[in-house]
């Protein structure tokens, strides 16, 4: 059995930031199913928000208000306040670590405009900000290699909870296939999101809900899962991300008639309205037959920015367009469509990263979460661009600190290692033994299609019911597949099957929570309930596992400074 004071699963921004906190005093294991530098945080492009005021006067109050309004008032405002207040210090800390930031003429960190932010507050490194921060943190992890043990290409199967306390995880080494128990005083999940349940997504193949579902299977509810963000500018059919920075720098959205249609939907903010509003506007244009050439896409037009500006601020986007569709955005507009991007919901935590399992804030001792897999909730019903890198960094650090303080006070919990290990070995053996005729690929495709069509940008009762029943059918068919590769060595097929199991579970949770929320708010839009309903739904949803079924509960939203108002842009 492997032992660490604190074990962190996931080595993106949140996981590595947490590790750097814990390693100041305790021994830490950092486990990832890829390599730290391959984490999906690196795909974030546009920026990280903080009211530094480097190009215009700014304040944390304005950042907070923009975040709450952007989140359609579902955010817990006590957490948002802490979060935006922490932002400048977090940026300076990253800069001191060595993170490369684009600069103003006077040598300060440059800042640009972003959707839903009333001030230019996105600090950036050209159009690869997530990459710059990810590598800066990775550099620090390498620097502290003596106190951070990294497990690259290890997969986390299961959370171990004994007598109401989390005591470790069951994992396997992807390269050797060996299953191991890691015994820890505290476990932090920083496992990212689950955009891969949707057909068109900006997410990496790794975004498969592993962490959320492991927590769920250990009895932890998942919060606000109906709120999935669709990014307005994913590449047509492929979902490859074209940063919102393209619009932050002045890019236009055009429909098939060549009109800047955002005028009809958000006249004051135009292309820089929050993502939920822009994505819905795009989908409405497409549904009304006003897509480009009548097809399911619209145009992102950057031509008027000029080559020099594009090469300075958006070089990666230009290259992506050239490589993936042969379109040079200096000369031609890019075809885009709404693409599943970010999960506002996830494992419920308090503002210190402690996982809480009900409305009374009952903690699951020894279990912490941060980043996209967690729901604090600072983003409410819709996250603003550049707020996620900030979330991962702020709450990664905080979860690390809280886990560290907890682990300093307690002994290792009791753990029945061989029993826990046997459970995972049995699950793997069961997959190897399956001898059905169902194709996992087919199941995965059907899941992604039905989630996109019926639980996507626009939803209604009939579609959601049909979606849930399709997913339930797929879950049955999933048990009747067959694996080709039964080896131990780097069996990527096996892990894809395990991940598919997680995604099917997640898809059912998302659509079930979406069916229950009979209102439209932020990223969740019901055509049969097109208005926000504060009287009945100004509350967070919690989906619990119960006897193989899903059980829905709710908890109140924390409102402090800003009373819910109508949200217009």
């Amino acid at each position: 059995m492997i032992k660490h004071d604190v074990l962190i699963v996931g080595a993106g921004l949140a996981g590595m930031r947490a590790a750097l906190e814990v390693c100041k005093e305790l021994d830490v294991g950092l486990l990832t199913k890829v390599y730290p530098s391959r984490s999906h945080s690196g795909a974030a492009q546009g920026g990280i928000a903080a009211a530094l005021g480097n190009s215009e006067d700014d304040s944390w109050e304005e950042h907070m208000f923009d975040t709450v309004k952007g989140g359609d008032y579902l955010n817990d405002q006590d957490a948002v306040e802490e979060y935006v207040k922490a932002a400048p210090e977090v940026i300076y800390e990253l800069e001191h670590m060595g993170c490369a930031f684009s600069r103003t003429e006077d040598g300060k960190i440059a800042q640009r405009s972003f959707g839903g932010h009333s001030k230019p507050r996105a600090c950036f490194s050209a159009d690869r900000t997530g990459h710059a921060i990810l590598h800066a943190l990775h550099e620090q992890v390498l620097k502290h290699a003596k106190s951070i043990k990294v497990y690259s290409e290890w997969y986390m199967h299961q959370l171990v909870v004994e007598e109401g306390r989390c005591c470790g995880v069951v994992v396997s080494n992807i390269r050797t296939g060996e299953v191991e128990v890691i015994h820890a005083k505290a476990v932090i999940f920083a496992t990212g999101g689950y955009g891969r349940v949707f057909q068109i997504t900006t997410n990496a193949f790794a975004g498969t809900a592993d962490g959320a579902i492991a927590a769920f299977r250990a009895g932890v509810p998942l919060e606000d899962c109906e709120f999935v963000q669709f990014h307005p500018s994913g590449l047509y059919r492929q979902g490859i991300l074209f940063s919102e920075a393209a619009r932050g720098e002045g890019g236009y959205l055009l429909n098939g008639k060549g009109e800047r249609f955002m005028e009809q939907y958000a006249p004051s903010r135009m292309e820089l309205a929050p993502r939920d509003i822009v994505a819905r506007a795009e989908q409405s244009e497409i549904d009304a037959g006003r897509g480009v050439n009548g097809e399911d896409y619209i145009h992102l037009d950057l031509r008027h920015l000029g080559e020099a500006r594009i090469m300075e601020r958006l070089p990666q986007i230009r290259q992506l367009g050239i490589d993936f569709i042969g379109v040079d955005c200096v000369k031609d507009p890019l075809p885009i469509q709404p693409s599943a991007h970010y999960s506002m919901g996830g494992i419920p935590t308090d503002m210190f990263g402690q996982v809480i399992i009900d409305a009374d804030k009952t903690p699951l001792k020894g279990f912490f979460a941060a980043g996209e897999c967690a729901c604090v909730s600072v983003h409410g019903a819709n996250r603003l661009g550049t707020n996620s890198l900030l979330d991962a960094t702020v709450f990664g650090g905080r979860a690390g600190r809280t886990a560290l303080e907890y682990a300093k006070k307690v002994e290792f919990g009791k753990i029945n290692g061989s029993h826990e290990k046997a459970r995972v070995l049995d699950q793997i053996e069961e997959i190897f033994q399956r001898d059905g005729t169902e194709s996992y690929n087919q199941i995965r495709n059907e899941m992604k299609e039905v989630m996109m069509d019926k639980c996507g940008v626009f939803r209604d009762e009939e579609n959601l019911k049909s979606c849930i029943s399709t997913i339930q059918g797929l879950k049955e068919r999933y048990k009747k597949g067959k694996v080709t590769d039964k080896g131990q060595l780097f069996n990527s097929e096996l892990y894809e099957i395990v991940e598919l199991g997680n995604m099917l579970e997640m898809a059912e949770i998302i659509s079930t929570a979406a069916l229950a929320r009979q209102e439209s708010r932020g990223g969740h839009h019901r055509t049969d309930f097109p208005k926000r309903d504060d009287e009945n739904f100004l509350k967070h949803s919690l989906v619990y596992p119960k006897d193989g079924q899903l059980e829905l509960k709710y908890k109140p939203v924390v409102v402090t400074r800003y009373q819910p108002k109508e949200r217009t842009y």
Partner: protein
Amino acid sequence: MAKFRIKRFNPEKQADPYYEEFDFEIPEGATLLDCLNHIKWNMDGALTYRMSCRSAICGSCAVKGNGHALLACQKQAAHLLKDGSDTITIEPLGNMPVIKDLVTDFKQFWEKIDQVKPYLQNNEKPPAQEREQSPQQFKKIDDATTCIMCGACYSDCQVLAVDNKFLGPAALAKAQRFVGDSRDQATRERVKELSKPGGMWDCTHCAECVERCPKPAEPFYRIKGLMESALKEGVTNNVGARHALSFVNSVKHSGRLNENKIPIESMGYFNIKGLLDLLPVGLRMLLKMKIPPIIHKPIDDVKDVQRIFEEFGE
């Protein structure tokens, strides 16, 4: 119909690698990664490779396509069907041990990254806000910071193929990212360390890494940056730097290379052991009648060459 000829290796089943072909029509716009996924999900679930972001930023899916390293997700499969050929050969990255199929062992790659102390070194107490850095100073590290650690340069590096002590292009590019950073205070120690055998001067300037780099990191240009920094810092007491300086000197004075003098100046006049090491090569050249003329004559237009040097202030 395209043929995907893939190098397979699974030591659990068979000790030796072999090639297997998969035939299908490349869907319009499919990347090489899309094609690998098509094979894995429809034809052979056991085919093993790494992938994650499929947007050329995570660096997982580097493999060799038709003999050259590339990111599978970034490459249109049809573009690999050049000159009427119907076959695309896919192999694991080079200069690394293979674990299974297209999955290679990056252990040594990462160890070399570690060797260059890949983190900012600055012992001053940081200011309350950001350290200042001008846009021009940022630009000096901008390209190097785009490296995604995919290993494509490492795979195809000609020096690593014969000398695995060489740090390799990725680690050297990473080193330049700090040497060039106005906030880093360890420039001198870094370039000294990087001037040792296995470091920057072991690069043979073939620029293969520039061809293979999927990002603007283009390691060879970063290595050149390191060399400039080393000379600027006066870290010249090593074969590589002496060679570069002798080379420049020779061209400046005679418009061409003095092939008798350069090896000796590179080794250093007082480096007895190094000079003795040169003897056998010299003797073999003599025997094969390949010795350059003993009297080194300048070219006719040497004045023009010297004008170029003056123009650039050396």
